[in-house]
């Protein structure tokens, strides 16, 4: 079997600096981000022959191709929530290795904050798919779904609100080093616990923000990447998984990452202990804690102890989200693309004061959907080689 891994590289990465853009449209943010990522790669838009996006509606990728005047020969508008952009990279790696196209452009843009969408703490957008009829009548919010996982984790393992708060405090420390981060003032564990309860046991400061924003990535083959301006960041391996309410008996702590992570690590030929920096979708503090366990950085039930003592901070054993994450930097609704952008920039060593020293191996994990109900998990390993 032809190995599809280590044959595709991220060669362009751009995070739109905006956090509030009432003067811009979402499609404008897509286009500005595309410009930024292509400039970063040293490629022209006419080089692009594959288009990836998400969060744009049922035929939105056609509208985006229209807006960018592209004639791609490969399109992918994966719709598995905020992890979709990590999934795009995994799909692009397979397709580039198969020779289906040369240059992929992945874009994202959202004006969630200026249009006052309720994302994390509002009600989910219920479209009445079959599962919705058995959930929506009872008032599940997105945060409520994650909160039910947190409650169960506390029950089974004795995890505390203080331990979850450590994650929010760490993300805020990181954000202080990121000039684009939306929230940069330090917070304490006491601040998190004193913030109002949104959905027990999660407080306001356990929840990601709602911002505007966007970003873009450019991917191509490692051969072509050698001639480009940036050091290539290579996709070493990746995998996807989904979980849902099953037929009424799911263990809520059995999250999708438990399936995607072993596959991704095996495909990459690396172990959790080898990882220098982790980019983990932090929709809520519990998302990080549960994901760290599922990725294999600690055993099930040990996440609460693992996140303490500075272990997930810069300078710690496993720095998580040096940009400040969705808890403190930005969260326009679907944050997966920012995980890949920050991983790329960390591996290039261009992150200034928030740089993880000598970062050679990054683990990215995106979660999409509702962790306590149906959701996706996509794990990807990126390296400098």
């Amino acid at each position: 079997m032809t190995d599809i891994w280590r044959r595709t590289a991220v060669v362009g990465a751009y995070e739109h600096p905006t956090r509030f853009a009432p003067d811009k449209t979402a499609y404008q943010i897509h286009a500005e981000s595309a410009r930024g990522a292509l400039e970063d790669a040293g490629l022209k838009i006419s080089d692009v022959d594959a288009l990836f996006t998400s969060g744009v509606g049922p035929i939105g990728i056609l509208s985006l191709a229209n807006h960018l005047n592209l004639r791609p020969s490969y399109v992918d508008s994966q719709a598995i929530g905020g992890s979709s952009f990590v999934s795009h990279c995994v799909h692009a790696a397979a397709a580039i290795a198969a020779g289906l196209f040369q240059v992929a452009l992945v874009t994202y843009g959202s004006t969630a904050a200026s249009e006052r969408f309720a994302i994390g703490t509002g009600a989910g957008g219920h479209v009445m798919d079959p599962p919705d009829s058995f959930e929506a009548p009872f008032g599940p919010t997105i945060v409520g779904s994650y909160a039910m996982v947190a409650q169960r984790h506390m029950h089974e393992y004795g995890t505390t609100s203080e331990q979850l708060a450590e994650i929010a405090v760490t993300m805020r420390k990181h954000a202080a080093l990121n000039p684009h981060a939306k929230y940069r003032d330090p917070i304490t564990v006491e601040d998190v616990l004193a913030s109002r309860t949104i959905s027990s046991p999660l407080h306001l400061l356990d929840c990601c923000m709602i911002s505007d924003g966007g970003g873009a990535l450019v991917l191509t083959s490692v051969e072509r990447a050698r001639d480009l301006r940036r050091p290539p960041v290579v996709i070493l391996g990746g995998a996807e998984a989904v979980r849902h309410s099953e037929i009424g008996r799911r263990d809520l702590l059995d999250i999708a990452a438990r399936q995607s992570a072993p596959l991704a690590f095996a495909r990459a030929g690396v172990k959790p202990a080898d990882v220098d920096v982790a980019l983990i979708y932090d929709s809520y503090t519990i998302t990080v804690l549960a994901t760290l366990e599922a990725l294999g950085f600690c055993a099930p039930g040990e996440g609460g102890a693992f996140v303490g003592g500075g272990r997930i901070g810069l300078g710690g054993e496993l720095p998580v989200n040096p940009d400040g994450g969705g808890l403190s930097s930005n969260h326009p609704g679907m944050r997966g693309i920012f995980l890949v952008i920050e991983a790329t920039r960390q591996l290039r060593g261009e992150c200034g004061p928030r740089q993880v020293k000598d970062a050679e191996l990054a683990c990215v994990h995106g979660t999409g959907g509702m962790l306590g109900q149906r959701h996706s998990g996509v794990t990807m390993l990126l390296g400098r080689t």
Partner: protein
Amino acid sequence: MAEKAYRKPLPRIDEESRGFWEALARHELYFQRCRGCGTKRLYPRAVCPVDLSSDTEWVRASGRGTVYTFTVTHQNQSPGFREELPYVLAIVELEEGVRLMTNVVGCAPDAVRIGMPVEVAFDDVTAEVTLAKFRPVS
């Protein structure tokens, strides 16, 4: 029934789920069991995902169970819910072994605990729709 408009989302009653909702309207809670492989299931669906059999029987649940997990919801701006904050969203495990999403009612939200014994409380929200909520066993 009061004619006050009901503002929360209503289930879509379709060919796969009609039996479930019709039973609830009679104040009876049913789950499904596959006649092929015996697997119990909720929510109801026409084809068993385990053996893909369409041979399904409806089984009446006792209505007793325990709280598997829950959250006290303090923020939800959706019509119908914002007037009832805080409310308890929960997953209840029926004593027959299947779980369903619900609300725990009939007690202070802060009194709810994982493992707490509960029993079904039928809530006739419209002329057609009855929801299976749960209350602490008295």
